[in-house]
C-alpha cells in the first residue's frame, strides 16, 4: 500500500485499520470550532476511512461532570462501533464516581484527565485517585492532556503507581516537552505518546518513532478541536515504513483499547 498516493489521489485510508485515540465532541466555550457533534465527526471519518475514534465531551471537562459523561454515553449509543468514550472525572465534586459508566458496555473505553482546564489541578492529584484505581482494575487506557514538561512528568508518575493501566501522553510527544515524554516512554512500558497537535514541523513524528519505538506511538488528531486530515496526511507522507504507519494508525491502539 503506498500511503503517499492516498494523499495525491485524495483517496480515503481504505484497507488499513485506523483508530483515533484523541477526540472531542461538544461546544467549545473559548472559541468556535467547526462542526463538533458525533454525527459530523463520523461524516469526516467515513470520508477519510477512519474506523473509530475515542472522544471526551469538552463542556463536561469545563463544567458539570455528570452531564458531560452522559452526553458522551448518548453519542456512543447513537453511533455504536464508530464513536467510543473517555469518562472524565472532576476533582472538586466529592460525589464524582465513574464506575456506573463501565458496569456494562456503554461504549466507554478509557479515562481522560485534563487538570489544566480544571483549575490547573496537578494530573497526579489524589482527588483523581478514584479514576486511576478504576482504570487500573479494568486495565483501561488513560489519556492525559500533557502539553508542558511538568504535566508529562505527572502523567509518568501515575503510570509508575498504577502499572496495569496504560497512560497516553496527549500532545507531549511533539511539544517542547518531548524530551520528557521520551524519557517516560523509555522508563515505563505502560506509557505511550499520541500525534495530536495543531502544528509541528515535518520530521517530528519520525523523530518520536526513532526515540521511543513505533509501538509507543498512537494516531490521535484532537478532532473537532481541529481537523484530522492534516495529521493523517502528515503521517501518510512521513518517511516511515508502511508497517510502521499501519501500527501508528491503528494496530498499536488495538493492543491497549478493548475494540
Amino acid at each position: 500500500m503506498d500511503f503517499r498516493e492516498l494523499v495525491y489521489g485524495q483517496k480515503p485510508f481504505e484497507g488499513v485499520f485506523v483508530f483515533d485515540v484523541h477526540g472531542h465532541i461538544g461546544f467549545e466555550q473559548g472559541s468556535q470550532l467547526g462542526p463538533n457533534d458525533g454525527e459530523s465527526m463520523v461524516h469526516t471519518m467515513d470520508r477519510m476511512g477512519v474506523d473509530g475514534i475515542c472522544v471526551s465531551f469538552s463542556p463536561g471537562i469545563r463544567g458539570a461532570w455528570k452531564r458531560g459523561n452522559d452526553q458522551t454515553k448518548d453519542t456512543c449509543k447513537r453511533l455504536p462501533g464508530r464513536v467510543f468514550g473517555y469518562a472524565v472525572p472532576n476533582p472538586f465534586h466529592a460525589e464524582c464516581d465513574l464506575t456506573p459508566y463501565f458496569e456494562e458496555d456503554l461504549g466507554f473505553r478509557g479515562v481522560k484527565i485534563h487538570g489544566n482546564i480544571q483549575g490547573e489541578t496537578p494530573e497526579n492529584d489524589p482527588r483523581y485517585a478514584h479514576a486511576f484505581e478504576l482504570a487500573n482494575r479494568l486495565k483501561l487506557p488513560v489519556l492525559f492532556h500533557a502539553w508542558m514538561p511538568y504535566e508529562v512528568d505527572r502523567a509518568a508518575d501515575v503510570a509508575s503507581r498504577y502499572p496495569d493501566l496504560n497512560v497516553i501522553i496527549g500532545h507531549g510527544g511533539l511539544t517542547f516537552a518531548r524530551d520528557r515524554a521520551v524519557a517516560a516512554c523509555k522508563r515505563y512500558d505502560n506509557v505511550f505518546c499520541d500525534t495530536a497537535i495543531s502544528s509541528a514541523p515535518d520530521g517530528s513524528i519520525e523523530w518520536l518513532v526513532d526515540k521511543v519505538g513505533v509501538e509507543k506511538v498512537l494516531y490521535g488528531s484532537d478532532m473537532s478541536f481541529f481537523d484530522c486530515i492534516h495529521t493523517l496526511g502528515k503521517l501518510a507522507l512521513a518517511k516511515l515504513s508502511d508497517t510502521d504507519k499501519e501500527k501508528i494508525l491503528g494496530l498499536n491502539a488495538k493492543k491497549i483499547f478493548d475494540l
Partner: protein
Amino acid sequence: MLRFIDARCMLGERCIIREGDPNTKEAILELMDRCHIEKAIVYHAMARESELPAGNMALIGETAGDDRFIRQWCALPSYFGEYMSAEDFFDAMKQHHVTSMRLLPKTCGYSLRPHSIGKLMDLAAQCHMPVFIDLGTELTTDESYDLCKMYPEVDLVFGNSGYRENRRLGPILEQCPNFYLGTGNYVAHCGIKLFCEYYGAERLIFDTGLPTGSATAAVSLIGYAEISDEEKALIAHGNIERLLGEVRL
C-alpha cells in the same frame, strides 16, 4: 426595612467548587432570605463556563415557576450558524421572558466592536434592554468608555469593579450617561458615599456576585453607607426596577 434586588447571581453546577460555598440553588435562596434579597437576576453557570447554548436553555428549566429569579441570557455573536442569529436570539428571549443579556467577550473570544456585536446591541437598544458585563475579567475600565461610546442608547451595567478603579471610573461616569456600576465588590473606602455625592445614586445597581461573591458583605456595603434612605432604596432596588421596567420585548 430595605429590600434588595440582586443584579448579578449565577445558578447551576460549577466545575470548580469549594466546600462550604453556596453551591446549590437552596443555599443561594437561604442566603437571599438571610439578606432580605427579594429577587435576583440570574444567568447559568454552564452558559458562562462551559456551554453557552445549553446553559441558556438550562436556566429556563431551573427557574421555571420561581418568581424570585429574573432570567438573564449570555449573548454570542453567531457566524457560520454556530448559535441563534441576533433576531432569533431576541425572539427566544421574548418567548422565555428573559429581560436582560450578558456579554462574555474574553471568555467566548469575540470582539465588542460594532462589526462583531452590532446587530445584538441595536436590538437591545430597540427593546431598552440593559446589557451586563464584568470589568476586570471581560474588559478593562478604559475599554468600558469605548463600549459606552460605541452603543450610547444601550444601558450598560458593569459589575466586579473592585476598589482600585476610581481614577478611571470618574471621567467615564462624567461623560457616559449610560454607564451603571454594580456595587457588589465596589469596596473603596467611602466609595458609595463619594459616588452618590459626585455622580448621583441613580447609576449604582446593587449586586452580590453570588455564589463566588458575598451577599452579606454586599448588603452591608449599602446598609451602612453614609447616604440617605432614598438613595439606599434607589441602589438596593429602585434603579434596577426602573431599567427592567423599560424593557419592551
